[in-house]
């Protein structure tokens, strides 16, 4: 009997051993940390925002603008004005809210906790840019309750939508605060190499903040023509970009997997979805614009520059040119060229025609200098004579000759493939310019999706409609493609 009990205990031993076990670190995830420092959050947020603005947003806006045309797949759909809530969700669910803005909000929070205003300043500039871009596409969007899905207290998974007007104030406030932050004498830590835009150059960030302030003031041109111009100019006068070298942009690496958004898209499986737009090619051809071969890749045989008509697939049309179609093509947030055009437009609105003409001419010259710089990989060289000829014809305006149409047209060419160009075009629409400047023609089969009207905003993402329904519905029923954002009246 004793032996039986002993054996019994022996058998029981493993049981006791196992029962005594705790899980320990079994459920501790070895594959991902639960925190990350600011200096890795910042570059990721910058790259993600850049890939959003210069990815889907630029792709779709540029198709609407007929700078390029969709010939396949969803790009053909977008060209036919079938930009649905699914497509609109890709950048919202990817690059913007979770991809960059959430991380920027974490940086702002961390920087406040750690007393690192320099990080907070950079994050606020980027947040302002992201938010401004979102309003320009969707008007009312979540911000004040956003990024709180994981908050230990006051968790919000269905954030309410803030009015576009109010968010424009927020954009300005963020930028004002950012300038203060960036000029703070001390900071626990400061961005350096991890800053993909300026490599930690805070002075330039201040210039960029003012440039963005000018941009978003200027967007209000339809609502408050004079005030918007005055405020924009005030910012520019306070000190902003003075050369192309000041551009707020990211130059990604020079290999396929380090490339910037346009190249990465064009070289990917779906990059065949777009070709040069017929309207754009014709416009530049008619003006003998020396930027054309840089923007559009000449066909090796037949007519060199062929565009695809809006809403129609012409796969044989020209591909995009070396200026964008290379890994190191700059991915812009805001540029010197844009700032000069803002200056021209604002001055013109205030009747300062000479200043307007001067700024316009400077913008055109800066654009030509930037775009037509030689690109060896594409065999592209600068044609100084052609540049000169162009500048004489289109970059030599005077107080007498300068017009808003000229500024908008040149800006349309100068901001090639930048989403900002679509915002300008929408602002250019007035009763006597019903199809905007430059005057676009409706895409074929526009009847199908927009009842024969131009798209004026993006629809709310399907993900928001489904997961945040009440708040989206509170924005009213008229949030279709042809509805307008608050400044587009």
């Amino acid at each position, binding site marked *: 009997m004793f032996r039986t009990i002993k*054996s*019994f205990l022996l*058998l*029981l031993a*493993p*049981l006791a051993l*196992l029962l005594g*076990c705790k*899980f320990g670190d*079994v*459920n501790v*995830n070895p*594959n*991902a*940390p*639960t*925190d*990350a420092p600011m200096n*890795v959050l910042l*570059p*990721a947020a910058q*790259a*993600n925002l*850049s*890939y959003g603005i210069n*990815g889907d947003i630029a792709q779709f806006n540029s198709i609407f603008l007929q700078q390029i045309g969709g010939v396949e797949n969803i790009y053909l759909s977008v060209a036919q004005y079938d930009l649905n809530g699914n497509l609109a969700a890709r950048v919202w669910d990817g*690059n913007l*809210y*979770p*991809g960059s803005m*959430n*991380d920027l909000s*974490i940086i702002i929070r961390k920087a406040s906790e750690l007393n690192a205003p320099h990080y907070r300043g950079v994050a606020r500039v980027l947040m302002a840019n992201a938010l401004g871009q979102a309003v320009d596409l969707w008007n009312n*969007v*979540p911000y004040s309750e956003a990024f*709180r899905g*994981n908050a230990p207290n006051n968790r919000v*998974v269905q954030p309410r939508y803030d009015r576009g007007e109010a968010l424009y104030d927020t954009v300005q406030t963020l930028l004002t605060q950012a300038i203060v932050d960036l000029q703070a004498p001390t900071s626990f830590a400061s961005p350096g*190499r991890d800053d*993909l835009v300026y490599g930690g150059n805070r002075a330039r960030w201040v210039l960029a903040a003012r440039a963005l302030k000018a941009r978003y003031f200027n967007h209000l041109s339809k609502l408050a023509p004079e005030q918007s111009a005055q405020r924009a100019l005030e910012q520019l006068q306070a000190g902003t970009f003075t050369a192309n070298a000041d551009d707020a942009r990211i130059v990604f*690496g*020079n*290999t*396929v*997997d*380090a490339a910037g958004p346009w190249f*990465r898209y*064009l*070289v*990917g*499986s*779906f990059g065949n*979805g777009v070709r040069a737009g017929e309207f754009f090619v014709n416009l530049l051809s008619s003006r003998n614009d020396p930027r054309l071969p840089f923007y559009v890749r000449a066909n090796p045989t037949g007519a060199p520059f062929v565009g695809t008509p809006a809403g129609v697939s012409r*796969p044989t049309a020209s591909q995009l040119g070396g200026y964008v179609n290379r890994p190191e093509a700059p991915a812009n947030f805001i540029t010197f060229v844009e700032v000069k055009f803002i200056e021209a437009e604002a001055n013109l609105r205030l009747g300062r025609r000479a200043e307007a003409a001067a700024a316009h001419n400077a913008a055109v010259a800066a654009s030509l200098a930037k775009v037509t710089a030689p690109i060896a990989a594409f065999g592209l060289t600068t044609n100084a004579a052609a540049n000169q000829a162009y500048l004489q014809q289109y970059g030599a305006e005077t107080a007498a000759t300068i017009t808003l149409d000229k500024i908008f047209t040149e800006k349309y060419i100068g901001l090639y493939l930048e989403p900002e160009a679509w915002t300008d075009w929408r602002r250019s629409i007035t009763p006597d310019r019903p199809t905007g400047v430059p005057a676009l023609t409706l895409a074929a089969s526009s009847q199908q*999706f927009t009842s024969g009207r131009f798209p004026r905003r993006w629809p709310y993402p*399907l*993900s*928001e409609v*489904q*997961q945040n329904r009440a708040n989206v519905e509170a924005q009213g029923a008229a949030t279709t493609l042809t509805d307008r954002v608050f400044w587009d009246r």
Partner: protein
Amino acid sequence: MQRIVWKTAAALVLNLALALSVLAQERVITGQITGKTDNQSIPGASVVVEGTNRGTTTDASGSFRLAVPTDARRLTVSAVGYTKQTVDIGNQTTFNVTLDEANRQLDEVIVTALGISQEKKSLTYSAQQVGGDELLRAREVNIVNSLNSKVAGVQIISQGGTPGAASSINIRGKSSFQGSSQPLFVVDGVPVNNSFSTVASSASVDNSNRAVDINPDDIESISVLKGPAATALYGIQAGSGVVLITTKKGSRSDARRTTVSYNSTASVEEVNRYFPLQDQFAQGTNGAYSDVPGQTFAFGPRISDLRYSSTLTDARYPQGRIVPATDPTAGPNVPQVFDNQRNFYQRGRTFDNHVSVSSGNRDGNLYFSVGRLAQTGVIPRNTFDRTTVKLSGESALSAKLRISASATYVNSGGNRVGRGDNFTGVTQGIYRTPPHFDIFNGQSDPTNPLAYQFPNGSQRSFRNRDQIDGMNPSDLGLGPDGPLWTVNKNPYRDRVDRVYGFGQVNYQLLPWLSAMFRGGADVFTDRRVAAFDIGSFGGDGRFGRIFEETFVNKTFNTDFLLTANRTFGDVNLTALVGHNFFANDVTRSYLDGNTFNQPGFFNISNATVIANPVQSRTRRQTFAAFTNLKADYKGWAILEGSLRNEWASTLPTNANSFLFGSLSGAVVITDALKLNGDALSFAKIRASYAQAGNIPPAYSTETFFVRASAADGFGNGISFPIRGSNIGGSTQGNQIGNVNLRPELNTTVEVGAEVAFLRNRVSLDVTYYDSRNRNQLVSIPRASSSGFTSELINAGELQNRGIEAILTVTPVKREKFRWEAAFNFTRNRNIVLSTGDAGQPILMPGFGTIFQPRLVPGQQFGVFYGSGWLRDAQGRVIIEPQNRIGANGQPEIGANGQPVPNPNAGFPVRQDNLLIGNPNPRFLLGIRNTLSYGSLSLSFLWDIRSGGDVWNGTEAVLTNIGMTTRTLDRGTQRVFDGVVATGRDPQTGLYTASAEAPANAQAVTLTQANWFQANGRATGAAGVHEQFVEDASWVRLRDVNLSYKLPAGWFNGSKFLKGATFTAFGRNLLLFTNYSGIDPETSLYGLSPAQGLDYFGNPNTRSAGLSLNATF
């Protein structure tokens, strides 16, 4: 000192042994056991001295030899498939016992949870056993397939017909909203992994489910435990049922007996159904021939209107460039039409050999086997092979202590081919090729580069008129790789090395109390290498790409069991207390390299860029303590209950323990009421109530930061650190960690009855169950403005109700001739009761974002939502009117004062977001007929599936590009059924039709532009899906099997050969279905819960083969 102790001990043992041998007066008896109907010897029959543990089993010739105590009175003889018989010993020394074939449903002894054998008669829940013979009938390679149509309540869907392709098994429907709902696989008491491990389940290749590593030739039987009452002892692992596999063992025999068994099988496979493609229209658009680079449409002219040019040459067409007949250079010859499908698919071959040695004596036994399977598929270069080596044994160390162990080594894998939503899928490459393009380029050898390469080495494709430079991104048109390019240039190889097995100790503590400890392990590595040679369109392989992926999967499991068995008067009590530890540890490493140094060399060192390396480890552990009590009153009233408490590592630390239980009972009415008539031979009723659970995946309770990448909407982008810099980037993960997670809870009520009539000639086993799965673990999407896109929560409830019935009939039972028919009926109604949060539907992987299987409260599981035709309240399709109707519902008037004509007049109107299909079948029925005459046996299995829709996405896409036979009506007139719109709904802007709306009479001529690719009514994956949802009912001859067992008499006296059986078999020989695509038994998403999507799956096969079985 020690030596003395040992010596003394040895002396004592010796003395004891001597004493025992003197005490136990013994004599030796011998005999042979045969079956009554076929007069064949029965190997492996058990012969036991009644009331003792003394016993043996018969050898291959059915003979036994047993030493019995002189006072032994009776022998009990039993064998699987036969009725147990008791024989008086008397003074006889030779026994020839003839056993009656059992009624399988009633007399069977079946293996239940934790490997406990029980008489089926005493079970209080539903469980069904399939014997090794039945499993091997169709010689299926994958044991999951071998259960098809053989078990009531089980649905099996194979992913495609390529060698080694995965198959999904669901017991009693889907139990989980988002999990795989695959049952637990247990081999000899130890859980084994049946994972699928595919990241992109809709694309990639036909990967295997890992149960494919189990060699069917090593299996003795499979028990399918269906409800939680049966699986209660497995707890959370068994929320979707258990497939309990018992492997073959060496027979225990009084004298040493060794048997060698050899099986050799060879079969051929061929495609059982081809996709119907049009063979009349050429490449081009709008009726005009166009072969410009990138032209993917087959909406050109009739091929008969084209000619080979007599002067122009074309790298694609050796006969000359194709031009319109009117072209000045046109020659006399009409372009040839090629049946690329039939040319491409070849005859597949399977060779399967298995040798086993089993041996045993009184104190132990041994089983050793080696199996080797080699398959080549119907697709060139597609292979799968499997080598298994198994060794198992058992030894009695003393009268009370027994040790057993088993180890199996498996090496399996093959060369797979692309499938599904994948530009390197061979079906995409074949089906999209216009009929005048010969994918073989006049060659016959599929591996000849002349067939798939242009002279300059670039890919030969109908889309590339000029010999373009495959490396130049601007020269490549979007489209799938050519099929022969794919099989030669896009290899995908996988290789699994696996060891699984167990060690077990049994100890008889007291006559009524025994203990068991078992430790099991299943460890494997799964290495996969996929490459896309330079110039591939698919797999982002333009510059060459290779990825190497390695999984190391370790599962450890220990069970400790104390079993007490006591009889108190008429009540027999079995009590069990146990403990279980389970640990699973999976590491995955993934290297993705691109930009090859040189073409055709598929090694990671050939890549110049390594992107996105992944190294991940996922661990899960559980502990459990459980108890089970079974009380049996006179063998006719049985009550059973169990409780199990579980601790799981993946639950929040402060709430990681939970308890569930079961209660069940059965009454054998015929025994209770002492009915034993011929008419009603047996009747039993049973009922059970039981719970089971499921736990969340690891690491779900916290929010993490992950390495960042930046990309556009199609995922074209970069990841950190950006190449060329060392700047890192992290982003907060998109899933919100949930600290409030709880386990899923399944509660099932089950009632059943088993009856037999006419001396068991007819028997019926019916079960009705109603199971509710609450607190479903659901990864729900979150509004991304919250900063996150998903959260794992407990939400929703799922109900499965159903009937399982097994009817066995023996219409003829003569001396030599016997006809048996078995019906397995499955009917499951799977209803989503709720989806948690505000009743939002849960979206499952679908196709694109418009066609989606969904979980919608009140609907069946995974019903299809997509676009369909706008209908009025009476269900009539609304047709576009002659003139336009404005947004206000009034006719539009043009500037000229006339109504504005509607260019779309006569066409139906698309509406999105409609319920358009249900993939769940109404019922499944398997009918097995077995006719035996003496040694000859013919068996065939009909597999019937009624209802259940499949979305024929292949047809949708190919219609869009003009390759299906339904596009042959291009250019013809059609009047669409429906009523003409009479107004518009002011709210939605959609057309309305009044009750008196006229029937449509407007004939329209269908063209590429106005119909097949027209905005708003197009075909294609993003088009109107309703047109491509089809009923996938089928009647299929799942297997046929004719076997002849050489009469036992032939081997009498043979020292060498002891028995042989020849078998001819066929699989999937006949298929009757109205489905228009390939075999509707296909699944885009493999083991995922989303079913019923057919999208460029690889075709299924039928096969025929021969098998020889010999025993030595």
